[in-house]
């Protein structure tokens, strides 16, 4: 598994970890730089949950994103960190799909707070779906699993 035959999946895992980790560090950090009430306002525009939920969620969510992302980057409790990120992404995908289906104009998705890149709900949905797939791989697949199950014969 540690030899050349297992190197690719390891690299893929590393790339996915760093990519997802970097995206979520950026997402959590930019949200934290803006007031929580503004993130709550963005959440309210989705018309899914009341203010009694959005305000506490806006205070907690960016910290969860940040901590899970850092653990993913340093590769500590990777499965748990990836599972937390996957759960958040599943929520985002559901929320974005819901506004698209209902035709609600929310302007930007609010994914990176006020300071980060501005994405439309459609763009955010595509990205989040891809990130969700990556997070699920990191959470549920074993690194080098493919080579363990189907070892390449040595020639």
């Amino acid at each position, binding site marked *: 598994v540690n030899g050349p035959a297992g190197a690719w999946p390891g690299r893929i895992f590393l790339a996915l970890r760093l990519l997802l980790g970097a995206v979520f*560090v950026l997402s959590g*950090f930019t949200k*934290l*730089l*803006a*007031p929580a*009430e*503004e993130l*709550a*306002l963005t959440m*309210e525009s989705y018309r899914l949950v*009341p*203010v*009694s939920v959005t*305000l506490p969620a806006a205070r907690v969510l960016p910290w969860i994103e*940040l*901590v899970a992302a*850092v*653990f993913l*980057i*340093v*590769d*500590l409790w990777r499965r748990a960190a990836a599972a937390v990120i996957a759960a958040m992404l599943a929520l985002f995908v559901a929320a974005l799909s819901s506004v698209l289906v209902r035709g609600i104009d929310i302007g930007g998705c609010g994914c990176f707070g*006020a300071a980060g890149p501005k994405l439309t709900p459609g763009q955010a949905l595509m990205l989040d779906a891809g990130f969700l797939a990556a997070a699920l791989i990191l959470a549920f697949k074993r690194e080098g699993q493919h080579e363990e199950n189907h070892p390449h014969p040595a020639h």
Partner: protein
Amino acid sequence: MTPTAKKKFGAALAVVAALAATVFVSRENNWSVSWRVPSYRQMGPASARVALVVYSDFQCPSCAKAQGRIKSFMQKHEGKLFLVYRHFPLENHKWSFLASQAAEAAGAQKKFWDYHDLLFTRQEEWAKSPEAPDGLFIKYAGELGLEAEAFKADFKSGKRDELIRRDKKEGKDLNVSATPTIFINQRRVVGDQQLESVGERYIELELQR
């Protein structure tokens, strides 16, 4: 925990702590709500225990809803609240800066709040206008009995544009990016839904302090 895991844990904590420190420092530097506006944009006693500083945009529908709630707070807690209006015209609202200019011209004749109410009540009429609604703004001034020539001269003179720009700049310094943003003393509320949900509670809490 293995030594490697301990090292990783230490690294993770260090990174999170560094980012958290940056966040707290950035928030600390941006936290001082100013009441520095002309007296015609103030309402209630300046010595009141609770100040409501409202960053608002005359063309924003959520601001129109919020001003109704603010009015009811002022009536309910008469004499206990100090209200300050600060302009925050958003770029995507075509006529908002013009509306602020008109409200300032009305303020020069001590009718800022009446004009403010009228702009919000008639928002749909002027906000949808394809051309600059100068005529409507002058008509509103007439309805309120403002001196027409003085209003016209003041309105487009640009004399008070700097006040509007200063409000917006100071709002941005406070990380305001959406309207309405209301500061109830040091507590921030963004949007009319949050105001409806937590506004009264924040006022009560501040009055009890």
